[in-house]
């Protein structure tokens, strides 16, 4: 009964989405207030229906209702409760439901935080989001119904893939999808602006917090995915330049470019058509990412929940949405105008350069990801593009972009003076060159890439200090400086913190790539192996029984200079339902280094292959992402986005009061 309610709710949601995608848009075009006013309630009802469907599916998982095919495929009665709830998005059908549910959540957020927007704008934005939602709901209802029944009912389910039975997997997909789907808001704002022909600073100001919020979720989602592959796959790798990772990285690059370009559009009115194009691209790349991951056409370490037959539908949906928006862009862009002019040396030009670099980076990832697929589709042979390509492309592209991160915030709008910038930044430059030259020697080994990486990280930190000092340069007293810092908008601090996050990230990547060490050795109980000053001693290997797996567990004692550091217990598990073996590495985590031990194959009854790894600063990679996301959060919640809202609300309630008075 409950699954049928869910199914019915989904069909109703599709009907509401269709109404929401047609009536408000027509109403806004023709000026019919009643149809315009439909947008908000339609979005809220749609979300309520989606939430109901989602709860029904979760209920089926929690109560082990294996008569539902999707539950039987992805759950088992021995699975712990929290993973049974997370299995809702452990497969293809449920992930699509999660995707639309989150789209609904973003729509409701738009209805709640749009009091300061003109009603036609809200109607158009929600109408465009309704179109996206209708497309995906049609996809779910007609090709991948998560509530489809199974007959005869199996006694038990096939279990969730053991690699997904990890706390990281509980939060990673929702975060990543929040990011993907969040760009639909920026996209909807862009399309709404194109439809209305109103592309101005106000539009950019409305669009900015949404874009920042989506970017923040995407950053967290990617970081979680990377951490998952590091902790769970047992290889100690944190990024493989794998197509599925690239699929999430491309919208991130486009979104990062979009954030910066929106800043220019808001402050100076320039780059308007470029900003709109980026907003379309960021969402198109999100859709492409969904398509690539869902369609199963990739060989990937992250390819779960795939179903090749459905790929075609998403591809058609993708082509229709992106094609029509680009067409609209082409038709309307001539009307947009160019905006304010600026000098060759100015903040605009540094942001433009940053945009070009990020876009080229996104395009090069796109090339490396799609070219092999295109070649394969044409029957011209199977190829793959390895990490060396991405490494070769990214270092030269990102190095100037990171350099500009130091210059941009100091440069003036419209026209900046190169000598003035040079004077301001000379100490920062000296410090970073020194760091690049000397720090690697302290750490043990100098190479051009390590030097460059550390110099860039130091450059971002040092130039941020200079920017902060420049902010209070004319304040006079300490109290004046404090007052000035307090009156500085929150979004400025958000930017600085996000940039510092990049510095932390670069430092982490550079040090872990430059100084990580690893050994594969055969060991018997009592054997020791030395690695980067640590001594790993295998105490013994024993059998362990888990809730839904059996494991072989090694006890590994780690000492340094004769003192015990920790004892680690790496495992090889066999999950009983799917008979699937997994390698569960054991990690001693520290801020400055991780020790990573993997238990490999048994060579005979007493001898094992063991991999030990020393990973300095590896946690800084995710710490950096966390700091970036924090910066995004601060910027998204800046006062000026909220003040506009409250002012408008106050104004409209005043109007209401006067009208009431007049009526009396």
């Amino acid at each position, binding site marked *: 009964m409950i699954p049928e309610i869910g199914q019915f709710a989904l069909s109703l949601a599709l009907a509401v989405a269709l109404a929401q995608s047609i009536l408000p848009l027509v109403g806004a075009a023709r000026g019919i207030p009643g149809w315009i006013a439909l947008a908000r309630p339609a979005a809220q009802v749609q979300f309520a229906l989606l939430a109901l469907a989602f709860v029904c599916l979760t209920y089926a998982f929690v109560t082990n209702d294996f008569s539902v095919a999707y539950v039987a495929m992805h759950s088992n009665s021995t699975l712990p409760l929290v993973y049974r709830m997370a299995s809702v998005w452990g497969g293809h059908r449920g992930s699509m439901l999660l995707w639309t549910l989150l789209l609904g959540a973003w729509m409701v957020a738009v209805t709640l935080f749009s009091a300061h927007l003109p009603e036609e704008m809200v109607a158009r934005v929600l109408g465009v989001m309704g179109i996206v939602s209708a497309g995906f709901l049609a996809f779910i209802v007609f090709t991948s119904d998560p509530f489809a029944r199974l007959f005869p009912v199996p006694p038990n389910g096939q279990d969730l*893939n053991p*690699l997904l039975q990890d706390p990281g997997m509980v939060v990673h997909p929702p975060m990543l999808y929040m990011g993907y789907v969040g760009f639909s808001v920026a996209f909807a704002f862009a399309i709404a602006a194109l439809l209305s022909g109103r592309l101005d600073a106000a539009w950019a100001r409305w669009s900015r917090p949404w874009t920042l919020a989506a970017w923040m979720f995407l950053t967290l989602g990617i970081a979680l995915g990377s951490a998952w592959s590091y902790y769970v796959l*047992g290889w100690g790798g944190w990024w493989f330049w794998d197509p599925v990772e690239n699929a999430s990285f491309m919208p991130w690059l486009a979104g990062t470019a979009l954030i910066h370009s929106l800043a220019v559009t808001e402050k100076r009115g320039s780059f308007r058509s470029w900003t709109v194009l980026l907003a379309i691209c960021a969402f198109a790349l999100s859709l492409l990412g969904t398509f690539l991951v869902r369609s199963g*056409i*990739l*060989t990937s*370490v992250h*390819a*779960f929940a*795939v179903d090749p037959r459905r790929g075609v539908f998403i591809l058609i949906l993708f082509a229709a949405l992106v094609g029509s928006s680009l067409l609209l862009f082409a038709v309307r862009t001539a009307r947009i105008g160019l905006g304010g*002019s600026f*000098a*060759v040396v100015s903040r605009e*030009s540094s942001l433009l*350069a940053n945009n*070009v*670099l990020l876009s*080229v980076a996104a*395009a*090069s990832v796109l*090339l*490396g990801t799609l*070219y092999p697929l295109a070649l394969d589709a044409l029957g011209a*042979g*199977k*190829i*793959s*593009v*390895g990490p*060396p*390509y991405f490494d*070769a*492309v990214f270092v*030269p*592209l990102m190095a100037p972009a990171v350099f500009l991160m130091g210059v941009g915030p100091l440069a003036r709008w419209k026209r900046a003076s190169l000598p003035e910038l040079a004077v301001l930044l000379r100490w920062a430059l000296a410090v970073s060159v020194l760091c690049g030259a000397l720090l690697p020697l302290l750490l043990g080994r100098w190479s051009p890439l390590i030097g460059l990486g550390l110099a860039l990280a130091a450059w971002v930190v040092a130039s941020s200090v200079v920017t902060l000092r420049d902010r209070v340069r004319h304040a006079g007293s300490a109290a004046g400086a404090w007052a000035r810092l307090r009156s500085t908008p929150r979004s400025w601090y958000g930017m600085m913190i996000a940039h510092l996050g990049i510095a932390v990230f670069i430092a982490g990547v550079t040090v872990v790539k430059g100084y990580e060490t690893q050994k*594969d*050795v*055969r060991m018997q109980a009592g054997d020791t192996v030395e690695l980067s000053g640590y001594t790993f001693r295998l105490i013994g290997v024993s059998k362990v029984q888990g809730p839904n797996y059996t494991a072989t567990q090694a006890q590994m004692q780690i000492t340094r200079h004769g003192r015990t550091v920790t004892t680690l217990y790496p495992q090889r598990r066999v999950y009983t339902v*799917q*008979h*699937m*073996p*997994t*390698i569960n590495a054991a990690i001693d985590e520290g801020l400055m280094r991780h020790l990573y031990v*993997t238990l*490999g*194959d048994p*060579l005979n009854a007493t*001898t094992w*292959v063991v*991999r030990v790894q020393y990973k300095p600063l590896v946690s800084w990679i995710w710490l950096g992402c966390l700091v970036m996301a924090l910066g995004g959060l601060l910027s998204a919640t800046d006062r000026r986005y909220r003040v506009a809202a409250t002012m408008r609300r106050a104004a409209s309630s005043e109007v209401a009061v006067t009208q009431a008075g007049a009526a009396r």
Partner: protein
Amino acid sequence: MKPRHRRLILVVAGLTALSITTALVLNAFRSNLVFFFTPTQVADRQAPINKTFRIGGLVEKGTLKHLPDGVTVQFVVTDTAKSIPVRYKGILPDLFSEGKGVVAQGRLEPDGIFQAQQVLAKHDANYMPPEAAEALKMAHAARLAK
């Protein structure tokens, strides 16, 4: 400087930067393409010597063995028509097992052994890497053609 000149400088600088980066990207792309060959194609000497490529197929049953150093493994990859010995130093992925699909990336040594730098198996026990499936399909088609 007149605005017209300024815009010209911007455009020229932009185009130059764009063409340099495009050249850089395409060059890196060309030199890092990794081609895929089936065991049959490798046996027919179609695969390049001294260049990294990928092979795929099934791990032949009963061929997985550890070399005396303990950490190097050797196994045979087959597309059911031809087979190739593969050597790999390190820990094999979780789902690597005899009779299952596998994709290996590496070089062909002069002694005819494929020295793998990377071995990929699937996360999902029921799922075959597309390349491995392709190799089996081609070998099957070749047999039917005969």
